[in-house]
């Protein structure tokens, strides 16, 4: 009976996908940097995921959902025509710059002070794409490099260089803030 098929499918989808709601929402918050945009994107993501659930072959649900969320968010990026970021505004150029430039100033002596979550979130929000996305997927959503590559549709090598770049930029911004605070 088609009604039952649909219900069973919905139930399987619910069990497979809803446990990752916080993960998907977290990524959406960092990608869109706006709570209500993130909610809309996550809802759309789950609608699309259900629509394509028949073709889902597992095993990793999380990167699959993230890939769908990215597609939803990309439309949003296009609409917004790139909101400026504080640290880096041109991802293309940033990817070509040597990654250790910012940390040359006596890095041995620097010890990062613990910051509250809100302050760190702001620093992450200020990272340019695609570095912010890669950083969040690794550091906050705990994806492996291979899973990140799968979710963002890029080679693992690209993921690695973006992650290195993201962390270098984040640490530079972090230490710069601490310098100012002194």
């Amino acid at each position, binding site marked *: 009976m088609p009604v*039952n098929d649909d*219900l069973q499918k919905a139930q399987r989808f619910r069990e497979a996908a809803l446990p990752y709601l916080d*993960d998907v*929402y977290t990524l959406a918050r960092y990608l869109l940097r706006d709570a209500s945009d993130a909610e809309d994107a996550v809802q759309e993501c789950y609608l699309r995921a259900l629509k394509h659930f028949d073709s889902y072959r597992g095993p990793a649900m999380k990167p699959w959902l993230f890939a769908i969320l990215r597609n939803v968010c990309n439309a949003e990026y296009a609409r917004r025509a790139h909101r400026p970021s504080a640290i880096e505004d041109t991802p293309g150029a940033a990817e070509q710059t040597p990654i250790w430039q910012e940390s040359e100033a006596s890095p041995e002596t620097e*010890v990062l002070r613990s910051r509250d979550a809100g302050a760190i*979130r702001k620093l992450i929000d200020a990272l340019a794409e695609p570095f912010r996305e890669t950083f969040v997927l690794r550091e*906050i959503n705990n994806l492996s490099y291979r899973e990140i590559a799968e979710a963002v549709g890029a080679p693992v090598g690209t993921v690695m*260089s973006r992650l*290195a770049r993201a962390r*270098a930029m984040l640490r530079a911004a972090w230490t710069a803030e601490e310098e100012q605070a002194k």
Partner: protein
Amino acid sequence: MTCDEARILLHALLDNELDAGHARDVEAHIASCPDCAAEFAAQREMQRVLADTNLRYTAPASLRARIEASLPQAQRQQPSRRSVLRGFAMGSAVSALAASGVVALVLRQDDQQRILSEVVSAHLRSLQAGHLTDVVSTDQHTVKPWFNGKLDVAPPVIDLTAQGFTLVGGRLDYIDARAIGAVVYKRRQHVVNLFVSQTSNTEYRTPKTETMQGFNCRRWSNRGLNFWAVSDIGADELAEFVDKFEAAMKANVEG
């Protein structure tokens, strides 16, 4: 290994992503290169601080509810007046649907009020001469089969005569333009109509009494059914009726 390569691979080392061979290569470079060693130490420190901080967000409950409500079976059964009263289908495919618990039926307040007023109107109609019962019997084994074929599945018919509420019969009624079963009881000379409809929500909802046009209506949900008990008896007596009905239902289910 160049410093360029090391500055990228040291992160893979931090993240435990390197195979043993590459890990040794990176460690060897770090051991011989103070700059890369400093960067490695700094990044490890930052990773430690980040790991100690909760940087995740929690999805708002309203978002979760929105997603639940937008799943397709929720769309088919829009949580609106159309689906509130779907007749009886216990034991059929629809009860499998209800048992799966996948459809949360959430009535908006105005819908609940509108249904309540229809229930009270139906109660009023039933009090007019000749409208109270379609089948007259104090025997639950006569009343219950009478519903068969008129509704998908008969509503629960329980004789509560011993508990002070006399079963007098059953009736087909219409609420929200749908057929619905009404089981009729009497307490002294007062009529109690028990309206029962199937619901996709299997959650237990505790009984609540509301008053409309001078009638008390006690509404609750259990076992995939919505119940409305309507009467002009006092609220405490109506609550007693509901308690006894539920107790007998429970005994039936467990017995």
